């Protein structure tokens, strides 16, 4: 499956005990095409990232929206659960509705005046790969001409509790972010984007050898099979996502990829994921 990428955006904000989460109201207001009330932080992150990616482009009316996230709108879910379990109150309607991941999709669609297909998909420690796979299949089937793909993760204070929820150690760094990619069903010209699936690792290896060039950047996903990741590491100059984006635990692939695409001028960027049971996915982005 070959298509092209048109734009990318990258919002990444490390968070620790001594910092405050930066308010997003002003940034959202200045970036979005219309003002929104009753939106929580997760929705704000989605609005901000998607608007920065699209900027003033005119999108195809059938452009699909795909939001991935490991934890989803966790802040609003916490507030809602406290309302009903701790306080014995009926949740407020907008709190209840915004517990759904899809509410962020709604506001992104409304801001960009899009009425095409619209999905919220999660895969723990692999949400980028899940939404990219779903979007590229739809682009290949030509059910859509463009896809706006985003991965959003929110951090909630106190960060010690946020770590506990995820089973992370006390000293682990945290970050929130919103990373977006605008893709198009178009095989011509530069900025190509290719996804390939392989049942066998050997076939992936052969293919990778045929397309890899010196200067390309490559990363193995955090959940990739260890033996094969070690093998790739011994053959290619593999970057470690965790060095740069370890704080973005659930979706560090999205942070790494968006950051690479925004800074990389020449060569291709490869992301590999899979194991012998799941099969192998290769995503690569040309400059």
């Amino acid at each position, binding site marked *: *499956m070959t298509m092209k990428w048109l734009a990318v955006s990258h919002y990444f904000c490390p968070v620790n005990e001594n910092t405050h989460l930066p308010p997003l109201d002003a940034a959202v207001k200045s970036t979005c095409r219309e003002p929104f009330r009753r939106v929580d932080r997760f929705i704000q992150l989605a609005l901000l990232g998607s608007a920065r990616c699209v900027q003033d482009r005119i999108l195809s009316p059938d452009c699909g929206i795909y939001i991935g996230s490991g*934890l*989803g709108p*966790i802040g609003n*879910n*916490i507030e*809602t*659960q*406290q309302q*009903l*379990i*701790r*306080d*014995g*109150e*009926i*949740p407020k*309607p907008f709190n*209840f*509705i915004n*517990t*759904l*991941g*899809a*509410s962020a*999709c*709604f506001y992104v*669609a*409304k801001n960009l*005046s*899009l*009425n*095409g*297909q*619209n*999905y*919220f*998909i*999660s*895969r*723990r420690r*692999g949400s980028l790969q*899940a939404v990219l*796979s*779903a979007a590229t*299949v*739809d682009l*290949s*089937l030509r*059910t859509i001409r463009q896809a706006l793909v985003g991965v959003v993760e929110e951090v909630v204070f106190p960060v010690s*509790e946020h770590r*506990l*929820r*995820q089973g992370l150690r006390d000293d682990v760094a945290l970050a929130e972010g919103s990373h977006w990619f605008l893709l198009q069903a178009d095989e011509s010209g530069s900025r190509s984007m290719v996804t390939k*699936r392989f049942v066998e690792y050997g076939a992936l290896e052969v293919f990778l050898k045929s397309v890899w060039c010196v200067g390309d950047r490559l990363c193995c996903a955090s959940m990739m099979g260890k033996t094969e990741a070690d093998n790739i590491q011994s053959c290619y100059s593999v970057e470690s996502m965790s060095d740069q984006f370890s704080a973005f635990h*659930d979706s560090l692939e999205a942070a790494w990829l968006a950051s690479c695409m925004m800074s990389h001028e020449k060569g291709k960027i490869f992301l590999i994921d899979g*194991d012998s*049971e*799941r*099969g192998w996915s290769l995503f690569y982005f040309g400059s």
Partner: protein
Amino acid sequence: MPGAYIRGMSLNCALGEDVGSCVSAMKQRLVQTVTLTLNDFNEPLRMPYYRMNDSSELFDPRRYECLIPSVARAAVIQAGLSRDEIRKLPLFIGSSSFSIGLSELSYAKALAQHPQNAIPMPLCGYQDIAVILQQGLGCKGEIYTYNTACTASANALLGALNMIDIGVYRHALVIGVEMINRTSLSGFLGLQILAKTIQPFDLWRQGIVLGEGIGAVVLSADSNSVTRMRVIGGANNCDTWSITTANTDGHSTAIAMRLALKRAGIQPHHTCGIKAHGTATRAGDMAEARGLHHVFENLPPITVLKPYLGHTLGACCLNELVLYAGTLLSGFIPATPGFETPDPVLDLHPLTVEISAPNGHYLLNHFGFAGNNTVLVVEKTA
């Protein structure tokens, strides 16, 4: 030929614990709700509810590990997949609430024992159902979890269908799960759209009655000896008119229906029947009825299944797809209990008696919060 076969399917809902018993109970109109009383709110909540018929306490957390894999296993067994195929089976899961019920129970327990250390949302994310399924079935394929309100399992099915269509997978397990939880019960109460009984498209309709259920389908590029149903197309769109309902002019619901029919390669007049979403809310039924009138010059027989099993939210597509397929394969299109007095504004008349179900194409509607509309087209073959 585009589309994918339903190679195995199963269901556990208020009607029964398998497809056969559900269809049988439906034929006899054995529609049952329980009355829930929740005393842990400042003002006790009382409401009717469609619960699954297991013997456990309704809020027993062990029901997740007991009931969910059992439904999935039944679908996988019927599909006749090899051990290797099961191990590599990708999971497409749709739910509104995922494991929020477990998270609530865990938080409530912590508050009672150590209130200073209690952490809200102790279980977060969407992976718990997938983990339960993988452990229960021994499958280790890719996971896709959809959280798009009442269309969640419809979108999970559409995602699996597209991936099979393009050759990414040969088989996929699609599952819709909705288990009782306080967030959904109190949230819908707060929205003031709960009713005592479901009366879809009726003049006196007042809203929804919630329910729980688990539906599973093994979707496959290959048929087997029991396969007589195919999913042949579908479409999703987003209506930004309101976050709680599709535009009541029926514009966006009609677009989703037309697109689904187009992708399935059939004309509206080739449709043998429609499984309507039919939430029985004032606005929801209006948006759907007007959409149907935009698309169909002559409406095919319409059925709403929510009066049988309640509104099972994110799982409603899978639950209702399996139930509808079960009735079609048993030779009939079911009637819609609760519909008595036509609403002249809607001008829609769901079946009040069952009729025979011919082979052919059937349309299934699903509309949810966040403006999410998903329509599927299935084919019953000889």
